């Protein structure tokens, strides 16, 4: 069963066609990778799905509902969460609060309730703290809860981004270059973690990644973008041997692994 269906998706910036009639189907519960050279339109593709940009043409369908025309916060409410290529944390607030922002849409407190600190609001706030803490535990950042997010190490910041995304209880999780800046050992752990997330949380994962080792190991389906167009899709083995992909992206080293 597919969870995300993208059809004929197109986006232009000025004269430049960043994404050109891309079709894509993501199976529920799968791990899918989007690869391609820099400037191929991968991140733009994510931005179109999450509503940061509006497509010029085409459709994005999550389950049974179309996401076209929705604002990012509405799309988040439909159950899509993401991380960012260049980390986008709330730098000057604490780690725990960062995750609590992820719980935003689950909290019911309004102006009046907040002003009078009703029992319900107080309880809800306490629960939110606990749940946020739980997500920190899940990604292994619990002991940093009171630090400012900007003071975390690079790897920890990436994890915090994931924790924050998970707190929104997504059905679909988009990871934009999660392994960027990680050494092989960290990357290995990340691979494991992505698998575990899928098992634990029943979430579908789409990721953009340059680390071919990670991509080949983890993904069930790979889409290759180049100059905004989808040039190939298939299982890792198929992609590895696709001539077009080797020319445009992988180079000869992919065929002869080190």
């Amino acid at each position, binding site marked *: 069963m597919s969870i995300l269906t993208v059809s004929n998706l197109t986006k232009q910036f000025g004269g430049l066609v960043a994404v050109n009639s891309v079709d894509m189907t993501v199976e529920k519960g799968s791990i899918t990778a989007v690869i391609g050279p*820099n400037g191929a339109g991968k991140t733009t593709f994510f931005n179109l799905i999450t509503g940061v940009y509006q497509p010029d043409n085409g459709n994005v369908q999550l389950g049974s509902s179309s996401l076209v025309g929705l604002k990012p916060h509405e799309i988040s409410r439909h159950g899509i969460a993401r991380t960012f290529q260049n980390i986008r944390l709330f730098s000057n607030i604490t780690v725990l609060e960062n995750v609590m922002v992820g719980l935003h849409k689950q909290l019911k407190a309004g102006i009046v309730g907040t002003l009078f600190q009703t029992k319900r609001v107080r309880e809800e706030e306490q629960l939110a703290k606990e749940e946020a803490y739980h997500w920190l535990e899940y990604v292994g950042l619990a002991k940093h809860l009171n630090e400012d997010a900007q003071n975390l190490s690079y790897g920890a910041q990436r994890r915090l981004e994931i924790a924050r995304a998970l707190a929104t209880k997504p059905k679909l999780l988009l990871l934009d270059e999660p392994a960027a800046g990680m050494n092989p050992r960290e990357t290995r752990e990340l691979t494991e973690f992505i698998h575990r997330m899928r098992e634990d949380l029943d979430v579908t994962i789409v990721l953009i990644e340059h680390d071919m080792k990670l991509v080949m190991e983890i993904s069930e389906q790979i889409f290759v973008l180049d100059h905004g167009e989808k040039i190939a899709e298939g299982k890792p083995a198929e992609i590895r041997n696709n001539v077009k992909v080797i020319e445009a992206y992988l*180079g000869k080293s992919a065929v002869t692994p080190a």
Partner: protein
Amino acid sequence: MSILQLNDINTYYGGIHALKGISISVEKGEIVTLIGSNGAGKSTTLKTISGQVLPKTGSVIYEGKDISKQPAHITAQTGIAHVPEGRRIFPRLTVKENLEMGAFIVKDKKVIKERMEQVFDYFPRLRERLTQKGGTMSGGEQQMLAMGRALMSKPRLLLLDEPSMGLAPVIVEQIFDIISDLNKEGMTILLVEQNAFQALQIANRGYVLQTGEIVMAGQGNELITNESVREAYLA
């Protein structure tokens, strides 16, 4: 004699002790690579050399002269070119202007022209894009521009910070080929890379950094075969 020598460098970012007594040396004509995970202090080391960050203690000896307290724009005039992480080309200047920036201290127009031709030999694609704004180019082209810009100053020492970052494998290969070529023609290169395997393959020597300290040093091929390096950075 080594062209560059770092002796017991300690550098701080605000309260953070980023480099804890780093000592490295680079011989003339070598490629030396610094590898290590993110936040290990690789970029900080390069910035300390080029003068963007001042070390608290320790000395940076370049061609026999201590340049550790020298501001970046002076260091840049003495033959050290630094290609920063993330390329950092000037997005709203044209390719030509970007290249001219690289030869900022050169007054002679003819010399600039000559050097530009030399850069085009390495990066023919830049010639086709002379009037294009830097920011509109693809990642690989930007990397080439950044390296070309650095070459415009005719450096004797080239500092490269993560040239392969975020590039397609096929482009990374090209870039590494060019780095090799440059070296073969006599350029001394200090290379910082995430992509440890490829870096060590072309490097004469390498240093492994971990949380601001050098934990291992050796010949490139030695490090490639070293068990713990393999475990941590290559596997």
